[in-house]
């Protein structure tokens, strides 16, 4: 090979090297740990768990210990290892959650890490629920540490939901009392509507129709309104109130009001036909009772 051909090859190699160096420089720009955190979560949300783990891990080696960014990266990595399927690593995930907590034990993210630890212990295995006592204890740890934090409130409601999953009257009474105390003590909680929904569940088990209807009305009243979705579909809760009023408490006026709300606000709903039938059903029942009274 002559010198000129060799020179051509050499030039090409240098050019390639320059391109590689340029690409490397571009990559350096994305090595910012904060950027990696966002990128890691984006990968997580897209189900690219290997890339998510890589992003979190690569950023973790670049951040100092005991900084809040490190806590967020640890939480991201722990969540990925905890919830990725397949390839989950619950042992490592638990270590990471706990490491994240030690950075700032009382801050907001730590509360969510504690809740994640509780949820890890309660994940059903092969469709079978975890032991109830274990679930109750795991959630209680979060409630004790963060009683007024949304994560603590979520833990409390998860705990009560677990306790009524298999209906048992004595336990359901305890849950009902606990929920009523929660509602009294947490009047500003964003979880109020869910709490009322669980109260309704308890009343269904215990056969308390009046209280169940009241809970459904309060569930509707305390429902959070999404500012970016101002006209949510409320047909489900309207229907629940209407049918409870008609068949559980015999409050036909209230039932008619909520059946009509379904008919007017959601005219394309499948249940509109049944709503019309039920209004006629109630009219018929009332007229028969009136007729009976007249005959007497």
């Amino acid at each position, binding site marked *: *090979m*002559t010198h000129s*051909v060799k020179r051509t090859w050499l030039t090409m190699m240098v050019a390639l090297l320059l391109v590689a160096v340029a690409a490397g420089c571009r990559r350096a720009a994305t090595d910012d740990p904060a950027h990696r955190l966002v990128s890691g*979560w984006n990968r*997580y*949300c*897209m189900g690219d768990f290997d890339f998510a783990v890589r992003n979190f891990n690569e950023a973790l080696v670049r951040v100092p210990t005991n900084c809040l960014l490190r806590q967020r990266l640890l939480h*991201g990595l722990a969540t990925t290892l905890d*919830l*990725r*399927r397949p390839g989950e690593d619950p042992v490592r995930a638990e270590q990471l959650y706990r490491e994240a907590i030690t950075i700032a034990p009382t801050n907001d993210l730590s509360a969510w890490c504690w809740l*994640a630890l509780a949820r890890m212990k309660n*994940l*059903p295995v*092969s*469709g*079978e*629920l975890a032991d109830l006592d274990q679930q109750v204890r795991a959630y209680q740890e979060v409630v004790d540490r963060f009683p007024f934090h*949304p994560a603590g409130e*979520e833990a409390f*409601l998860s705990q009560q*939901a677990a306790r*009524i*999953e*298999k*209906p048992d009257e004595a336990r359901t009474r305890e849950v009902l009392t606990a929920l009523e105390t929660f509602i009294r003590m947490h009047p500003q909680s*964003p*979880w109020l509507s*869910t709490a009322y*929904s*669980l109260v309704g*569940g308890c009343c*269904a088990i215990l056969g308390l129709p009046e209280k169940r209807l009241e809970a459904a009305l309060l569930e509707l009243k305390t429902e*959070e309104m*999404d*500012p*970016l*979705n101002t006209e949510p579909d409320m047909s*489900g809760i309207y*229907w*629940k109130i209407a*049918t409870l009023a008609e*068949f*559980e408490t*015999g*409050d*036909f006026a209230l039932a008619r009001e909520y059946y009509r709300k379904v008919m007017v606000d959601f005219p*394309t709903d*499948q249940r*509109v*036909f*049944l709503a019309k*039938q*039920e209004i006629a059903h109630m009219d018929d*029942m*009332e007229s028969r*009772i*009136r007729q*009976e*009274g007249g005959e007497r």
Partner: protein
Amino acid sequence: MIRDLIKFVRGNGALIFVAVVYLWSAVAILSYRKAQTPPGVTIELRIGHWQLEAGVRDAFEKMAAEYHTLHPEVSIVQDAIPEGSYGTWMTAQLMGGTAPDMMEIGLGVPYNIQLAYLSRYFLPLTTYLNQPNPYNRGTNLEGDPWRKTYKDAMRGNYQQELKEYMTVPLSQFGIRIFYNRDLFRKLTGLEKAPPDYRSFLEACRTIRSRKDERGLPYTPISGSGYHVGMWDAFMCNPLTYGAVRRADFNRDGNVGCDELFVAFKTGLLGFDFPPFQAKFRMLRELTDQFQPGFTGLGRDEAVMLFAQQHAVFITTGTWDFGSLVEQARGVFDVGVMDFPMPTPDDPEFGRVVEGPAFERPQSSFSFAITRKCKHPEVALDFLRFLGSQPGNQELNRIIGWIPAIQGATLPPMLRAFEPRLDGIWPAMPIDSLGGETTVKWGQMYSLFQVDQIDYKKMASEFLPFYLEHGVQELNEFNRNTHRGTAGVEQMLAGKQERAREASGVEALSEWIKYRQLTAGQLLVRNLDAGLLQKRLQNGVVTNATGPYEFNPELIARVRNHLHAQEKELQ
């Protein structure tokens, strides 16, 4: 030097060949794309769909050209992919990061996978759908939130599991009966299509009694394994509506397969329930009007029988409307009629038919915007253009489908497809509790369809099996709900992080969505299952009232309530 070069080429021939081919293909692709792109275009968007019908592709071409006139910098290119490979193609494109900017959603992957894809690879559109569509300016829909301009207010497009609107639908679909007007007139002597079940059956009998020039009897209804489901869904299944009052234990308006089983097991329902008997009796009467061996035939064979004028009626949807009319053009006149439901005074079915069949006015032909799209605002604007009153009218006029937007006019022939919003719906999901009972039901039902066993035999063979195996299957059904918990938590953790990253009103919205999803999918979702198990444990209860029936205690309450009211008035 030249000798050295030749030597070098000889020594590295394979490598050089690969490099040349690569360069050639790169240049070819680039020049092809450049040729496709009109001059002045700086933004090229791709839209992927599975509608290979000529009308759809033409419509997209024309609408894209019109959009280009309004926005000369934008060009829209479509990727039309065959139905059979759409799922694989979509999966490969999304995972490879090479998906088009907009994709049609609803085919090719199971619902749970589709949900995961929507969550991972597509942009939520809730915010934009709650804003007015600028292309509705000057129409009666000006200023209305885009979502509200849809005929169904986009209720069917809300992803309850994600608490988001993810897609923009562009058309509505409907199913009706098509008939050969000329043949119908010739064979029955009638001018108008039979409006009710009895006169329809009578017309079918008359048709069957007539013979063609070869001496073969005419077939009243052209059927197949594909078409029988439509007759079942639109005429027979709705007859089971009465079961809602006996088995909709959670009173959500629908009977679930778990609720139906518990109703059977506790004696609230059985195969002797008149609406169930009616459904199967009607199915038998209808399939008697099909050609023999219809279950073994496919969709195309049934269409051919109709097109060759050996059958008078066929049922199909708006998607086939254009091609059926096209096949009949110049040969015979095609009419469209509604499903002929029994009238209230029908001696056989009048008691159980409480109304016409309800049709969910769901809009589909839905498109979502991928997260990888470099110009999501332009993709959204193009979808706004197609989803505006004038744009949607034009798009559907070209295709021959029903517009999804209010006030968009539709051709007279398609008016028969407007959905019926007031009516009854099916309430006998006996074929979906679990593996073994589903298989057993499938076997029994197939034998019934081909007239090898009657209803009594089908019921007596299936019921003991159902009651015995159903308990285990119900438990497995509940375990399956729990098996999904990890997937739900995975999605919720992503939502939580999104809320943490957001600020202002967006953060508030994201946290609310997180809480609503957590409540619905983790906290209260098992309450109904627990109550159902309790009901199952209580066993058979004689004279039990159904969930939509008044028990004596309630009637006494109402009586007291009314008396108290009357006293107050006095």
